[in-house]
């Protein structure tokens, strides 16, 4: 079969809503796109543990503490599901982590904002997870089998995350004056970054073309953003908080909310590494990784020793032998 025939067969499969599986033929560009997108998604889950982790030790009740901890634990789990899916494309988790730590791979910029008050745990759950869920629900239908399966699992588990955040916000909004102010302040700081999570406007988004044709992405950035805003406005109103956008208005004709323009200078500045916490987040990840090196080495060595007890090696095989992660 020529490459062109393979490509036609591949596209026909996608058009028929069949999933592409790891051992299927796929265009190199499809593989690269997925490696980039899935690993970026995984990195976001993992780096996303930090801003919320910032408040575990200070959660104001034991219930709030276990709920927050369970949620962050889920994020570690989701990072793991996603790395697993990404690894089926022929790159190891070590390589993905290396790309993250060297700055080659990105993660969602939202996690480069600091969490400054307990209300931020509300805003992050309600808005950041809320936005992520809109995107992930859509991605359940993505064309790559392992990614789609990871998304199904993640969506099922994440259903409590947004509720957890919204519950905090609702509770604070009807609490003391200080608590309400805390909630409004968190909404003010997280609103715009949250709606920028969907990425640039479709007109400025270079990767959308193939991603839509190959059904990696099922809906565009602007479509998803609109969906999120439409459902969030009412949720803010009902708890008496004000979304910080003067241009936000229901458009009867379109059946959608109109909203103001986002600060794209800020968006690109943070993507390029100059947000409030970019350096802190990466440094944290690198430190944990380096602190863990001796532990991983111990575990690998222990496993090797155990194996050698079972199957003693010939002396000549021992020289310079290295444990490799996979074949």
């Amino acid at each position, binding site marked *: 079969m020529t490459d062109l025939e393979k490509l036609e067969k591949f596209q026909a499969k996608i058009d028929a809503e069949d999933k592409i*599986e790891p*051992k*299927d*033929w796929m265009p190199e560009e499809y593989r690269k796109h997925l490696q980039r997108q899935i690993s970026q998604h995984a990195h976001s889950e993992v780096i996303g543990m930090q801003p919320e982790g910032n408040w575990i030790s200070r959660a104001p009740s034991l219930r709030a503490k276990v709920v927050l901890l369970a949620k962050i*634990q*889920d994020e570690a*789990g989701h990072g*793991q*599901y996603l790395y*697993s899916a990404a*690894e089926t494309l022929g790159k*190891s*988790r*070590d390589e993905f*982590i290396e790309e993250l730590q060297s700055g080659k791979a990105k993660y969602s910029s939202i996690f480069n904002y600091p969490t400054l008050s307990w209300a931020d745990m509300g805003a992050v759950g309600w808005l950041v997870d809320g936005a992520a869920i809109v995107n992930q629900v859509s991605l359940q239908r993505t064309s790559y089998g392992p990614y789609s*399966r*990871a998304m199904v*699992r993640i969506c099922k*588990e994440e259903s409590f995350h947004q509720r957890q955040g919204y519950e905090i916000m609702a509770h604070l909004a009807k609490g003391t004056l200080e608590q309400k102010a805390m909630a409004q302040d968190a909404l003010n700081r997280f609103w715009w970054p949250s709606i920028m999570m969907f990425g640039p406007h479709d007109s400025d988004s270079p990767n959308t073309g193939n991603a839509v044709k190959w059904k990696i992405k099922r809906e565009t950035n602007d479509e998803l953003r609109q969906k999120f805003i439409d459902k969030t406005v009412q949720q803010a109103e009902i708890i008496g908080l004000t979304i910080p956008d003067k241009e936000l208005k229901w458009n009867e004709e379109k059946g959608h909310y109109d909203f103001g323009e986002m600060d794209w200078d800020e968006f690109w500045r943070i993507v390029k590494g100059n947000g409030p916490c970019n350096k802190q987040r990466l440094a944290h990840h690198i430190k944990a990784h380096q602190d863990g*090196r001796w532990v*991983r*080495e111990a*575990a*690998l*060595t*222990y*496993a*090797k*020793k*155990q194996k050698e007890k079972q199957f003693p090696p010939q002396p000549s095989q021992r020289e*310079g*032998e*290295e*444990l*490799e*992660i*996979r*074949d």
Partner: protein
Amino acid sequence: MINIKDNQGDIWEVFVQSKSGLPHKHAGSVHATDKEMALQNARDLYTRRNEGTCIWVVPLKEIVSSMPSESESFFDPSDDKIYRHPTHYIMPEGAKHI
């Protein structure tokens, strides 16, 4: 002296049985350096919500898979063997419990 290159351990595929009597179903994978760690990691990751009664972990490199390129020769020959399915047979009208 054993030389070790720092890494995240091997990939182990995880199969979870959700209830006794049901088959083990593929859940995903974990990284681990030994069997016990693979089992514990699988438990912590894939059964956080009461999803399991039994877990199998299998090193990815020990799994043998058929290839999509072979799928025609592997699977198509069973296409025309419709006599393997009960619906192929015509039963006399009124016959019960068959």
